[in-house]
């Protein structure tokens, strides 16, 4: 029943969560039958919840599977919490939980039996595994249905059971592959709520792979967009949003040219969309209030003023257009 000292320390000390990179990609390449799937991915991912995005075939699932040790890298490597995925595969597996995309369960078992078995396979003693199986099932909302056979579960319930088995051993990193697949809106909301709760608990980092941008936007603070096996974009969503606060869309009435001249005086960059519309980039120290004052002085009405906010969809589409981004 002995636990390696380093692992014990990692499990008990929440401070270590933020210290090393959650995932460090060291030129990770994977090829199947000579066909490259992941092409030399590099970078360290440090978010509490990292959204993995990309079009079909971009390599999202392959990346997760490689990190889980299902596929062997053909080049480079990666580290999870500082442990190499090849040299310390077993140690990594005791730190992670995985919720697969496809239907996956063990037949002819009740949910509690299934989750308990998964807990025991993760190394939990029998009693602890049973206790945590009950807890996990209550936590995901399957408490009342926990003695039912998994075959009788609806798709939404199966998704929740998959989440329960992924968290039963209290992993430090959760890989969630399309967790909201096939869920109806209330079930989807419940799943999103659970993911956010786990993220906000600060007890586990999350890697969420999804083709639903809204899910990622609601749950993740960082996103990694893959395109054709390469990193197209890696960014912090919150910082991206903050940086976008400098961009304003303004609708004017009156002599726009005067207003534009005055803007130059403030040192702001701008682009005229049409005779009534402007895009403005606020420079340091310039506030929205200054624009109102300027407009009043030049006798220009500001009819509409809005921050240009890049939605995740914008970022995604840009990434798809631009090609490779960098970390």
């Amino acid at each position, binding site marked *: *029943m002995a636990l390696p000292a380093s692992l014990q320390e990692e499990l008990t000390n929440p401070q270590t969560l933020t210290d090393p990179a959650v995932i460090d990609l060291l030129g990770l390449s994977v090829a199947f039958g000579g066909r490259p799937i992941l092409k030399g991915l590099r970078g360290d991912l440090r978010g509490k919840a990292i959204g993995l995005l990309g079009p079909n075939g971009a390599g999202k699932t392959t990346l997760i599977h490689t990190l889980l040790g299902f596929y062997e890298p053909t080049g480079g490597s990666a580290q999870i919490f500082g442990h190499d995925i090849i040299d310390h595969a*077993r140690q990594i597996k005791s730190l992670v939980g995985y919720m697969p995309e496809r239907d996956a369960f063990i037949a002819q078992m009740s949910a509690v039996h299934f989750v308990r078995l998964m807990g025991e396979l993760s190394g939990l003693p029998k009693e602890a595994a049973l206790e*945590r199986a009950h807890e996990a099932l209550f936590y995901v909302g399957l408490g009342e249905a926990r003695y039912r056979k998994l075959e009788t579960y609806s798709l939404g319930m199966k998704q929740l059971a998959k989440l329960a088995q992924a968290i039963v051993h209290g992993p430090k990193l959760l*890989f969630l592959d399309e967790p909201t697949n096939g869920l109806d809106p209330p079930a989807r909301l419940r799943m999103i709520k659970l993911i956010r709760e786990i993220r906000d608990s600060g007890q586990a980092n999350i890697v969420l792979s999804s083709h639903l941008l809204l899910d990622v936007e609601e749950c993740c603070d960082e996103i990694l967009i893959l395109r054709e096996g390469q990193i197209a974009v890696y960014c912090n969503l919150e910082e991206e949003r903050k940086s976008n606060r400098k961009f304003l869309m303004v609708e004017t009435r009156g002599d726009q040219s005067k207003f534009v001249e005055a803007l130059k005086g403030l040192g702001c960059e701008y682009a005229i969309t049409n005779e009534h519309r402007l895009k403005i980039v606020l420079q340091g120290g310039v506030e929205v209030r200054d624009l109102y004052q300027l407009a009043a002085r030049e006798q220009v009405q500001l009819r509409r003023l809005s921050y240009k906010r890049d939605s995740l969809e914008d970022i995604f589409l840009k990434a798809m257009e631009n090609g490779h981004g960098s970390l």
Partner: protein
Amino acid sequence: MAVYEQKYKRYAGPLTPEWSRFLIIPHHAYRGVFKSKLFTAFFVVCFVPLLVEAILIYLHHNMNALGVMRLQIRELIPIDATFFQTFVNLQGGFAFFVALLVGPPLVSRDLRNNALPLYLCRPFSRTEYVLGKMSVVLILLSAITWVPQVLLFLFQSYLEGFTWFRENLWMLFAIIVGSVVWILLLALISQAVSALVKWRVIASGVILAIFFIPSVFAEFFNLVFLTHWGHLMSLAGLMRNISAGLFGTFAETTTTMRMEGFDGTLREVVLTEPPLWLNWGMLFLVCAACLALLSRKVKAYEVVK
């Protein structure tokens, strides 16, 4: 993550030793296996020959009972290598049917329900998975083959005395090796087929075919070519020879036949068995093929190249 707290909490308690984790699979599998009353009944029946064996050993040493029943068991059924070999082979037959009932769904169910990634994303290797699944069969078969046979051998030794035990210690080796090789073969074949065929009934059919169809071919080959080398094709034939070799009853020339030739003359044909090493070699090849198949099929995900 207590039920009443409803929040996510990491586990920081002790962990079980890694070496013992493959045993979790049989522990959970037996719940399902013994849910079937029919199987449980059959499994109990598997112990009947062992009971008969125990009674025969007991009667051999109980003069009063023999006198009352007026039986001459000592002369009719001597307790020697052939006695133990007969019962080892008989239990081997029962073991085959137990493996046929228990083995096929073990891996196939997991493959059908995509459960392998759930096992393999944990600190649980493919080897441990295969070992765990094979243990389900191996432990059950051990309980009806070599374990009781060893106990009965020790029972006989206890009644007969230490000298008998010392003189027949080789028999203990034959009992253990003969039984273990057979149940290992059964476990490997049932798991390999289970990994290959996703449907239980078909998998059971394939296992039956693997054991019986080559036996038919082997007999046909033997008849046509007037030899016993056809036994190399048949798993039952291989095991019969290996068992005979272990119990010291193997003979390369098992039968001689008198045949009338085309010219009307009588000639004697000697039917020879393949040498023991070749039987072992073939068995090794079969086991290697099963392991290769398992290694190919037991993966979290099939790689589409």
